[in-house]
């Protein structure tokens, strides 16, 4: 498995050594309002999350389906910025120094902050990995070196359309884990084919030492279980965010509903 000494690499190693597949829930920071995010992160860890993927709201989230688009709009209603998200991570780190955090978003907020300033601030806040949807390795030399300089893992996506040549390139450029996008489509799309996912994960593993997480089409305990059986980790986003949306006016209920769902996912994949 990964030789990386990063918090992400270590966590994969420990969990997989113990025979446990990793559960990576995604929430959008600041959704439905900024005050609830840090609490919710702690709740998700207690409910069984191994790594947290924290979405940075962006005005033009091209790879998101309607559920996460609306989450970002709710968060942007409170003007939740990249700096705010890093502040939330720092707050979370006050009482949790173990759980790795991957910040997921779009390039422009990072461009505007500046790659090295972002990397320094993110590392200081306690971020472990950065997944930026719209920067492929071809465009990412400066971005990658800025992140790696600060000990941050640049997490890259592999898609159903990615050929093996690119898989190798992506795996060389990246760190932490490889994120396999299990469907052609946006987040929250359906129709995940476990056999196809299994083939692709094998192909990635043939060219990469990094563990492989799978996300985009996993919307319930059953699909999480199937995907976990053929990968190292499952990422669940829209299905969680939908529960936040349904309870947007009741913070306590958000916490309890999301945590209940994560427990179900945990039970299904263990």
């Amino acid at each position: 498995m990964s030789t990386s000494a990063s918090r992400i690499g270590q966590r994969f190693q420990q969990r997989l050594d113990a025979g446990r597949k990793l559960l990576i829930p995604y929430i959008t920071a600041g959704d439905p309002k900024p005050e609830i995010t840090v609490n919710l992160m702690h709740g998700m860890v207690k409910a069984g999350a191994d790594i947290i993927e924290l979405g940075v709201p962006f005005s033009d989230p091209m790879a998101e389906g309607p559920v996460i688009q609306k989450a970002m709009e709710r968060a942007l209603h409170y003007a939740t910025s990249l700096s705010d998200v890093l502040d939330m991570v720092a707050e979370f780190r006050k009482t949790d120094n173990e759980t790795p955090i991957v910040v997921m978003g779009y390039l422009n907020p990072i461009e505007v902050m500046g790659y090295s300033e972002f990397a320094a601030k993110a590392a200081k806040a306690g971020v472990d990995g950065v997944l930026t949807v719209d920067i492929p390795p071809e465009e990412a030399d400066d971005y990658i070196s800025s992140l790696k300089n600060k000990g941050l893992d640049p997490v890259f996506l592999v898609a159903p359309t990615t050929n093996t040549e690119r898989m190798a390139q992506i795996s060389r450029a990246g760190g932490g884990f490889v994120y396999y996008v299990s469907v052609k489509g946006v987040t929250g799309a359906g129709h995940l084919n476990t056999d196809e996912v299994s083939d692709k994960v094998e192909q990635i593993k043939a060219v990469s030492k990094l563990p492989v997480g799978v996300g985009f089409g996993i919307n319930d305990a059953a699909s999480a279980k199937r995907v976990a059986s053929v990968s190292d980790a499952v990422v669940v986003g829209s299905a969680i965010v939908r529960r936040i949306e349904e309870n947007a006016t009741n913070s306590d209920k958000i916490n309890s509903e999301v945590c209940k769902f994560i427990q179900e996912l945990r039970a299904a994949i263990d």
Partner: protein
Amino acid sequence: MSTDSAKYNLPDEKGHFGQYGGKFVAETLMVPLDELQQAYDKYMQDPDFIKELDFELQQYVGRPSPLYFAEGWTNHVGGAKIYLKREDLNHTGAHKVNNTVGQALLAKRMGKKRIIAETGAGQHGVASATVAAKLGMECVVYMGAEDIQRQAMNVYRMKLLGAKVVPVTSGSQTLKDALNEAMRDWVTNIDDTFYIIGTVAGPHPYPAMVRDFQAILGRESREQIMQHEGRLPDALVACIGGGSNAIGLFYPFIDDATVKMYGVEAAGDGIETGRHAAALCAGDPGVLHGNRTYLIEDKNGQIIPTHSISAGLDYPGVGPEHAWLKDIGRAEYVSVTDSEALQGFHDLTRIEGILPALESSHAVAYTAKLASTMNKDQIVVMNLSGRGDKDIHTVATHEGIEL
């Protein structure tokens, strides 16, 4: 352009114009974009494809469009001689069709059965729906819900042509959001779908490909002005939404240092009000819709909603090649307010009997300003990118008239 003798030769093989352009997209699109690039390179070398493209541009679009000496308007303005490149006379009424014919023929060669497009003013949507009807392809057009209100006539036109028009209600509900939604459709239906982007935006190879398909209007203008005047013009003027009509005009003149180039952005209510769409005049570099370029964004990197009376200019970005031409000083970018554009709309209509699109009216307004500062033996070529019939309701409403 590093030395005077070097010919302009951008983008590089990765789609970069200096620091601008590139391919900033989710991984799912990377291989399909390579395939598009390969198909484009292949067919642009294929005499059979070029013959088909030329034939359709002549027989279906009606090219070449005239380069018309606007004598009455020239006299009215009292300065340089003004020529209008009459893209308004193309089939479907704007320059957009030059590009849609090219991309749709390419889609057909690539075996794609379904085309999608985004549209602001509806001109690109109409042009896409038109070629889809002709080629018997399925066509889906994404359009911001707000633009659907402003451009009701074009929406109905697209439906008559058999296209499905999908209202986009996310974000600011205008062109940028339509582009986001079209991209989402594309990643979902990547196997059978060709995305016809309507301007020189998007990831490589789109900015170069759309430019190349639009450059026919610049090449024609160059030949036509040589016929009329025996020399190159002193200045070129075109409006800038994403920048396709402007780059189409500018591109064949880039190596002619004596020809000044002016791109006219929408200043909306005035740049100082913050309600505008002038990315080059008032924006900063950033990454959106697959490329690095100038954007209208806030200090946190969020894209700010834009404003222009003209839906086709109401876009927070601009083609990356314009960003480069601005930085190296080869082209100059200026802006014109809604009310100045409306004045231009009325002037050209009354003086020349030519109703310009509100987009083109921005170029009209700036051309009048510019030409009046030049002398009588100088020449300005302005791209009249489209006709204004689609805007009559907007103009009437603006002036408190109910039709």
